[in-house]
């Protein structure tokens, strides 16, 4: 009988355009859109930065060697043009109105400082809101600095190598997969949780509050089917909708990578292929299932109690933020799955998924997370049953 109710509710749900939108279309499109935007924007930024012609304003108190060196900066340091400016006030003004991107003040005693082998105090003006300009200025001056340094070593007859007492090499023992898992792995479960929640929301409201609002619940309750079977049949569709939304977001990710080929870096692509294995997908569903049941278990008592679609939506929608906030913990590097975080619902799923991606999962913690989520899901199902069994909640 639960199967009959499930099939009917599923058919009814799949014919609702709003639900299909939230369950299939939006989750499928989310990864292709986000990845395309991300890759497109970042590559366009890189291209723009490389091609950007930087106007460098130079205020020289007196002509010096520094002016000559700046004029002969090599082309590989990017396109640039040197413009002579009368004073620093004018320099700041021109940077503020974006006529110049960098300003360099060279003191009058620059040449004598160089001759005395002293440091020339250079003042650099830049606008921090113009991303990358400080780095450009550093690169130009570092080039000049290195050139002058080499000249001094030669004049003083010093072997440069003798001035380096130690050399240091850093070796990262974390694999690239682990790095991605720990630092970027939070995004994946976050998106699954968001869509799992949204996927559950409309069917929960439609199948419970909607029945009350349309006046169909009364006739359903007069059939000789126990209420728990009605609840389970309906709840099954709510959970399936949540999982379907998560699945389509995963499908969207595969589609972006394999068909749209959004990522063209072969090394990065190899790491992603290494992450998205069948084992990963199965483990992910093992964690997502109790979470989605929990979502359904939270929404159903609200939907049963609400008198109208609008009322249910106005309560469940803000709840989205309360549930999604812990999911954002996944974005924070340094927070890991341990005996404490495994006890915090939602947070444990995010962190466990991060561990899965990084390939550093510890079975006891995964089992503990699964156990906590399952226990909570059972409690919420029982609460749903209590609410659905209450005549005052079921009939308006």
């Amino acid at each position, binding site marked *: 009988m639960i199967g009959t109710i499930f099939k009917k509710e599923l*058919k009814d749900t799949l014919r609702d355009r709003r639900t299909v939108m939230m369950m299939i279309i939006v989750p499928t499109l989310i990864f292709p859109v986000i990845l395309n935007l991300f890759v497109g924007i970042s590559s366009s930024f890189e291209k723009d930065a490389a091609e950007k012609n930087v106007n460098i304003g130079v205020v020289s108190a007196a002509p010096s060697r520094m002016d000559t060196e700046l004029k002969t900066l090599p082309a590989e340091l990017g396109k640039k043009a040197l413009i002579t400016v009368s004073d620093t006030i004018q320099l700041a003004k021109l940077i503020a109105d974006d006529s110049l991107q960098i300003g360099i003040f060279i003191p009058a005693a620059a040449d004598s400082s160089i001759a005395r082998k002293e440091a020339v105090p250079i003042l650099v003006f830049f606008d921090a809101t113009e991303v990358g300009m400080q780095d450009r200025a550093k690169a130009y001056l570092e080039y000049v600095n290195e050139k002058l340094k080499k000249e001094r070593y030669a004049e003083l007859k010093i072997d440069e190598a003798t001035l380096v007492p130690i050399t240091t090499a850093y070796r990262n023992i974390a694999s690239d997969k682990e790095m991605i898992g720990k630092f970027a792995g939070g995004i994946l479960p976050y998106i699954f949780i968001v869509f799992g929640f949204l996927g559950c929301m409309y069917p929960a409201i439609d199948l419970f509050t909607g029945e009350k609002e349309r006046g169909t619940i009364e006739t359903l309750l007069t*059939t000789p089917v126990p209420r728990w079977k009605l609840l389970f049949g309906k709840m099954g569709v709510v959970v399936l909708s949540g999982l379907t939304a998560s699945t389509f977001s995963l499908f969207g990710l595969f589609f972006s990578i394999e068909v749209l080929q959004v990522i063209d870096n072969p090394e990065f692509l190899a790491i992603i292929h290494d992450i998205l294995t069948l084992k990963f997908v199965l483990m992910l569903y093992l964690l997502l299932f109790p979470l989605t049941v929990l979502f359904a278990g939270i929404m159903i008592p609200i939907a049963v109690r609400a008198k109208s679609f609008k009322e249910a939506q106005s309560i469940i929608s803000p709840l989205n933020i309360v549930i999604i906030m812990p999911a954002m913990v996944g974005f924070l590097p340094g927070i890991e799955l341990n005996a404490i975080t495994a006890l915090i619902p939602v947070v444990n799923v995010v962190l466990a998924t991060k561990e899965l991606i990084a390939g550093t999962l510890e079975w006891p913690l995964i089992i503990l997370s699964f156990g906590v989520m399952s226990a909570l899901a059972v409690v919420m199902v029982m609460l749903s049953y209590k609410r659905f069994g209450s005549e005052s909640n079921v009939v308006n």
Partner: protein
Amino acid sequence: MIRVEHLTKTFSLNSQQRKELGTTDSTVTAVDDISFSCEPGRVYALLGPNGAGKTTTLRMLSTIFTPTSGMIEINGIDAVKDPQEARKHIGFLTGSAGLYARLTPNELIRYFATLYGVSDNAFEERKQKLYTLLDMHDFQNKRIGKLSTGMKQKVSICRTMIHDPQVVIFDEPTSGLDVITAENIIHLINDCRNQGKTVIFSSHIMSEVDLLCDDISIIYRGKLLFNDTMESFREQMEAPNLTAEFIRIVNNSKTPAL
């Protein structure tokens, strides 16, 4: 057959409901110790103004609500102790009942037949009979949401009767319907009587009651003010017509006894 003895239903009131009703009481009694019986092959009308307790009574008979106290027997089954078994014998139709707009009549009727445990053979036979009787063949595969009110009412009737219930409960079945559409319900009630089914229906329209019922009860503020045959009602009439008599009985109950 329906047998009701000392049936009472009390609802708890929350603070908001108390404010809306302008009372300080923590409970309200919607149905207060009523007893009556409906016989097979007869139509029983529950007449009363809005808020009298008609819908609460019928919701208890159809096992949606559990009575606070009292006994309900549906075809010999104790509906309070075994509501699930009692539901197999009940067909329930309300004027305000909706249908699943995204399903077709065929899908909806099949769904309810399965919920009632109707066998495939019996389902096909009853479906064809009801479709022919109600002239539903032309729109059986259209989405219910696209049907006219009259067509929807026919689907509701078909849904109510698909498991061939022996007890049929109608809660204000013609409310909000035009005369032509209401005619389908009138026919259905008469058919049920002719087939020997037990029919109970609630209404606040005296002319409808006069047209259909064999037995009548008048309910007001949860109490039965009159409970007898229609014939007896006519004989005891003090007012010039049926509607005036109904109003007289209700008004008399408001006057405190000297």
